């Protein structure tokens, strides 16, 4: 590996880390509306704008729906656009999420994951972005503030890749990451700018029959996403699915290149495995919980228990092959969901991991834990109990409860 780029160690919370990364990514337009626990991101970024530290047009909109509409419009002109949201804000963007992905606009959005009303709750869970699973956005979830910083820088490269051209959400757990101070290493402005580069535009054929860069430009007029009825809509949706499949490779490629530059990596960029090679019992989680779970795996390993962990970093596109090959030899598996799919017999991550393993020649017994809703704390003791449950299932071969609620009062 080439020598990693010189970096500076500074203390930032998760939101500030995101803003710092966006500052170094040569963003042309930020349009945003404040919402806890994301507010620090755009607040900090607006300071950079006010101080003249960035060449970015900051658009204060009247709602999140408008914020994303403005980002989409900016992106359609070939500009680089960034926004951030959470919870009700992301929900208000719902319509525009589909328009943005349908217009193939590579907008980058940080989501400080938070519960949805009602009852009103400002704390962290992943209900907000999990509810946008099918909106056509790439979704990557991070473990800590360092990874939040690293992932935002990578996000522009992934989203803007000519074979992808899709918007991307970087999810960081509300408060647990967004408001928690951490020491992290940051690239120099120059090194970050070189890595992110300028936005490359693929060529498309317009109605005038000209092959021109994919952007709104009076010199080369084109119309994006106007109307496609029974005869063409389906074909455009199939293109989006192909772009998602392409993203699997691009996420890994950009992640590997970034690892070369910084010396930091997170598994293969899609999934992160921890003591999984010979694991008999294992847990799958999304987001910051893996930090605690790693210490539990360490202590179990010291006791001679073959415990492992898999952190799903990319939720969309779902790394089907990587998941299948990493988990097929596990005997008993718990999938952790920090959101609910009411009436769905378990959470979204559980459904998808089960789906992936259905076709494996061998596959584990799989159970689901719903946890941490509305910011409900989950102690190391409770997470340890999950592994204890798995050991029990492994011994008895009997699953008492397919779906359990961790830390819920009966």
């Amino acid at each position, binding site marked *: 590996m080439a020598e990693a780029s010189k970096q500076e160690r500074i203390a930032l919370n998760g939101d500030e880390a995101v803003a710092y990364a966006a500052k170094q990514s040569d963003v042309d337009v930020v349009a945003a509306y404040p919402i806890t626990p994301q507010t620090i991101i755009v607040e900090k970024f607006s300071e950079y704008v006010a101080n003249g530290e960035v060449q970015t047009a900051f658009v204060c909109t009247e709602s999140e729906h408008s914020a994303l509409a403005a980002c989409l419009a900016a992106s359609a002109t070939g500009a680089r656009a960034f926004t951030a949201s959470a919870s009700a804000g992301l929900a208000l963007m719902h319509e525009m999420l589909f328009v943005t992905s*349908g*217009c*193939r*606009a590579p907008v980058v959005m940080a989501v400080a994951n938070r519960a949805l009303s009602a009852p009103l709750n400002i704390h962290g869970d992943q209900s907000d972005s999990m509810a946008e699973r099918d909106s056509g956005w790439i979704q990557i979830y991070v473990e800590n503030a360092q990874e939040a910083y690293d992932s935002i820088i990578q996000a522009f490269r992934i989203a803007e890749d000519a074979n992808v*051209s899709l918007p991307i959400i970087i999810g960081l757990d509300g408060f647990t990451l967004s408001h928690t101070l951490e020491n992290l290493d940051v690239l120099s402005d120059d090194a970050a700018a070189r890595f992110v580069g300028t936005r490359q535009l*693929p060529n*498309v*054929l*317009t*109605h*005038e029959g000209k092959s021109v860069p*994919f952007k709104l430009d009076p010199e080369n007029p*084109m*119309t*994006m*996403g*106007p*109307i*496609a009825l029974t*005869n*063409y809509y*389906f*074909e*455009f949706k*199939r*293109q989006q699915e*192909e*772009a998602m499949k392409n993203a699997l490779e691009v996420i890994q490629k950009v992640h590997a290149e970034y690892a070369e530059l910084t010396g930091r990596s997170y598994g293969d960029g899609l999934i992160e495995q921890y003591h999984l090679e010979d694991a008999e019992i294992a847990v799958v989680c999304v987001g910051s919980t893996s930090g605690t779970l790693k210490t539990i795996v360490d202590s179990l390993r010291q006791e001679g228990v073959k415990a492992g962990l898999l952190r799903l970093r990319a939720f969309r596109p779902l790394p089907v092959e990587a998941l299948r090959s990493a988990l097929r030899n596990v005997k008993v598996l718990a999938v952790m969901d920090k959101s609910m799919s009411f009436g769905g017999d378990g959470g979204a991550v559980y459904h998808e991991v089960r789906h992936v393993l259905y076709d494996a020649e061998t596959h584990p017994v799989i159970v689901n834990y719903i946890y941490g809703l509305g910011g409900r704390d989950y102690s190391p003791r409770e997470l340890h109990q999950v592994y204890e449950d798995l050991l029990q299932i492994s011994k008895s071969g009997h699953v008492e409860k397919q779906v359990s609620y961790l830390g819920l009062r009966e």
Partner: protein
Amino acid sequence: MSREKGWKEIAPAGVCSKSSVGFMTGDWKTYTPIRDLEKCTLCLACVMFCPDGAIRFRPDLGRIEIDYSFCKGCGICANECPTKAIKMSLEQE
């Protein structure tokens, strides 16, 4: 009629493959605007109000012309006309 293209052959993001001049939206209409040239004072309010640009003033003919290939029959012209020189008819033009 030309073969419709597959998903690998078309531009992304619903980028238009042909100009809107090629889409005859006039066949959407139920009601058709009919001019009464006797009542028309050439104020051209209908030209200004038509959301589709389907009504034009023809200086060479000295009158307005409605392009029924694109008129969707919304009736705004009839509603705005100060002399009631346009009426909406269920009959085809």
